[in-house]
């Protein structure tokens, strides 16, 4: 092993897997990226070493998700490899084999929520969450992590999984939800009663470019990370905020992306979306790899770069400046916040949501009860009903025990689960316990 190796690249283009033949998430997606990486000779550089992804186990998947009816039923082999490859990237960094790692693979995962009935936003399994839960298990829960999600779409799946988890800081910078799927990710979404302020959403107005992304990185992300002091920083690197992306309206360039990577210096980068497979991905990915390796990326320029973007460099939208200022304020005062004003003064916080699975055409109705606990982040009870287009309804009940649960919450959760076993009309019931045996050896 060369001591100069700084970047471990887990490259897995899944050349034999697609959601459907003409779907954006298809075989061809990373073809041109591979060609560009090969032609640039990146695998020969002493700073870069390529690794084969491991195959995640069903247990690894179930640590992050409640799959309905089971992990086995909702995933394909490609999901096990994408999740496993992300785990490989994390292992490379934590073992010290490489300084940083890049899981450049597909399919992506950041729209996959805790409860999984199928695929939404091209995602079935949240690969970042699989990695984080694996590392937490490995470290007996003594592991804090920050995710900076820069995909143009709001990372609603990752947000859902870590909604009430104070050990995970989740920052999503995305195109304003009022103009793009999935619609969520407004600035007032700040996390549950047990983790208030550890969910940060910065919506960017359509048309935002490098200036806005870099301003947000420097003024918001970096200070928050410095404050939070995570053991690991993950960048969920969706590349659909590129000016050539067919699904979004953003103006980021390869240079902007590479500079952001350099500023952030994440431990692990995970590819999320990005569907300008010829005009963006080959250049953005080479830019990210070079930036991670500490090499000169200033020569990575897209052929289609319009003069307008070059001329606009440095011009910053006022709206972003004021939003960043607002979120800085929210962050610095998060601990003083009177949570009764946010969640009411009852012992249990109620949430009711309708979640649409665009990829698989499933409607899910979810209701949830979160205990407000002074000693831990609180146990939760979830009911979820999924309605498939021509299928029958599937109804599940689940009880979630948080990491570092206090004795009361653990006891209460176990009782609640006992109660679920007697409840009529539930097709499946689940107990999710990261520290217990259930979520692990079952």
């Amino acid at each position, binding site marked *: 092993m060369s001591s100069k190796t700084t970047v471990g690249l887990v490259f897995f283009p899944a050349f034999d897997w697609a959601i459907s033949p*003409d779907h954006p998430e298809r075989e*061809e997606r990373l073809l041109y990226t591979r060609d560009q990486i*090969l*032609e640039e*000779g990146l*695998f*020969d550089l002493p700073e870069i070493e390529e*690794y084969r992804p491991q195959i995640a186990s069903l247990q690894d998947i179930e640590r992050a998700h409640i799959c309905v009816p089971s992990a086995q039923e909702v995933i394909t082999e490609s999901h096990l490899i994408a999740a496993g490859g992300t785990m490989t990237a994390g292992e490379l960094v934590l073992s010290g084999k490489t300084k940083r790692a890049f899981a450049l693979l597909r399919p992506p995962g950041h729209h996959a929520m805790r409860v999984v009935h199928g695929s939404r936003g091209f995602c079935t399994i949240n690969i970042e969450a699989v990695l984080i839960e694996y590392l937490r298990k490995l470290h007996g829960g003594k592991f804090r992590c920050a995710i900076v999600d820069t995909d143009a779409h709001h990372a609603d799946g990752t947000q859902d999984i870590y909604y009430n988890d104070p050990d995970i800081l989740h920052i999503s910078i995305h195109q304003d939800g009022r103009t793009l799927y999935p619609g969520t990710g407004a600035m007032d979404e700040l996390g549950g009663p047990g983790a208030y302020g550890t969910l940060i959403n910065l919506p960017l107005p359509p048309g935002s470019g490098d200036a806005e992304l870099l301003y947000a990185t420097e003024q918001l992300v970096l200070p928050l990370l410095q404050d939070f002091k995570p053991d690991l920083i993950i960048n969920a690197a969706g590349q659909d905020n590129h000016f050539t992306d067919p699904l979004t309206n953003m103006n980021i360039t390869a240079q902007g992306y590479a500079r952001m990577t350099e500023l952030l210096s994440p431990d692990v980068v995970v590819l999320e979306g990005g569907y300008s497979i*010829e005009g963006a991905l080959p250049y953005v990915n080479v830019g990210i790899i070079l930036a991670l390796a500490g090499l000169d990326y200033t*020569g990575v320029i897209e052929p289609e770069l319009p003069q307008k973007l070059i001329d606009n460099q440095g011009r910053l939208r006022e709206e972003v400046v004021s939003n960043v200022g607002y979120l800085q304020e929210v962050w610095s005062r998060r601990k003083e916040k009177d949570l009764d004003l946010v969640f009411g003064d009852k012992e249990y916080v109620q949430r009711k949501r309708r979640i649409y699975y665009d990829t698989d055409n499933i409607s899910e109705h979810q209701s949830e009860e979160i205990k407000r606990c002074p000693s831990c982040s609180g146990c939760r009870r979830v009911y979820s009903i999924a309605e498939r287009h021509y299928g029958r309804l599937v109804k599940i009940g689940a009880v979630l025990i948080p990491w570092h649960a206090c004795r009361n919450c653990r006891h209460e959760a176990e009782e609640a689960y006992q109660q679920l076993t007697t409840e009529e009309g539930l097709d499946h019931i689940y107990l999710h316990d990261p520290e217990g045996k259930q979520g692990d050896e079952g």
Partner: protein
Amino acid sequence: MSYLVGIDVGGTNTNAVLLKNDVVLATAKAATDHKHLHLGTMQAIASVLKFVPDSVDKPIELHLSTTLATNAVVEGKGAPTAAVIIPGPGLRWEELGLAFKLFPVKGYIDHRGREQAPLDHNQLEEVLAEIKQSGFEAVAVIGKFSPRNLQHELEVEELVTRKFPELLPVTLGHRLSGRLNFPRRITTAVLNASIAKIQAKFVSMVQEVKDRYNLGRIYLLKADGGGIDMKVSITRPIETILSGPAASLMATMALVEEIGDAVVLDIGGTTTEISLFYRGEPLTERDGAEIAGFATLVPALFSRSLGLGGDSAVNYDGHKVSIGPWREGPPVALGGPRVTPTDAVVALGAANIGDQERAIQALKEMGACYEIDPIIMAKKIVTAFSLKAAEAINEIYISLNSRPVYTVSQVMAGENLKPDRLIGMGGPAAYFIPKIAEQMGLPFTVLPYHEAANAIGAAASRPTVATTLRADTALGKLVVPELDYVANIPRPLLFNLEAARREAIAKTITYAEQMGTLFEPSEIEVTEEEVFNMVRGFHMVGKNYTLTTQVKPQVRRIKKHRDEMGEDSE
């Protein structure tokens, strides 16, 4: 009846072998004369040709494995070479860390082979004038993504021909390899250009004596174990590097039946070369040969060098025997300065080389202050040798088994390479191979003809060529870079995989004929095939195809005579 001569020019000796069909008629040996490589070669040829009956009047085919190109590269004896590069955007060329003189020219071809910016002819002319003035003797031209669009490289060649003919011939990157890797393509083209004159001189000297000895076709062995017509090698000399390790593997294939998943060790004085077989086929390097720290795109058989040989220096610190990686001289038994593994074998009475008493005395001195008996010392050394070899083999398999793969089915298959037997060759092999095999718990074979094995390998090889076809039906373009072939696809909607295969095979046949390769049409095979649907905005706009096609590498099986049989376990 056909007669064939195989020659292997090694570091120390030049070995020759005369074949009559599949039977070895004679072997001969001469010292290698590094200053006059062709003289030693001719001497070796002459000494085996004595055994050809006078009645034979058919020209005799000659297969040559020579260190000419390897040495020229390793010793840096090539001509001063300028590289005209067309890097376009991406990783900056200054960051490539290449030790060549690079002259960048503006122009930009993208990953699909589309011209994004034209070649700057004014700048090019200035650069060529500077190259001419600075006294460079050779020129290589390499564009980023040139195998996808040859135009810019061809434009440079055209300008050189028109205005700077004294710089001809130039080496164009796309003709040497259709694979993607710009830095490796630069290295390959520059090395090729730099040794072209040395190669041409050698070829002309061999040509001179061709008639004197009634020689027919002459082939040089390539790093991939195939042969290349000697005349063609003048334009592609870089393909003949590392023919030594290739010759060993060809010999293995010629002499051993049912090779299976063997690991092959060629144990020499200073190093051991390790190569692998998988289901009877030799493993090849994924990207290309590496030589003297240069990473190239030259197709090559997989081989790793370990600093462990019969003459490696041995150290003992009272706890641990360490061997190599250096050689400090011949074994003590032959008057050398330092204990070697060979001395251990001699002391144990397992080989009859030089003075056994001196070997035992040296081992006694080595073990004296630790009160170790010389015979025990010798056994320790042999064990350490076997352990070091076994560990190195193990590491190679571990690294090969973690090689990335790009499809779900390949990951799920999780195919793992694992050796099922050990094959050895080289001077010290007879003694050490059984020990290493025992260490690894594998059956073993030691090759017969160990001195002439590489010459047999050269003789057993057959000429090969390979081409890369790239067809992009959305652009309506088809390119075969090695052949300078560019065509429009007349009816892109009717172009399919069958058509791509037909075209690739036809082009390989044309190319093989141009290269003077003899083959049967049935020997053409498609080795790699990649097809992608190209979808834009939910509509399929075309497909792109990448196919690699070759004249199948084949080996002439050589009969093993009972009295020449190697030592086989079981």
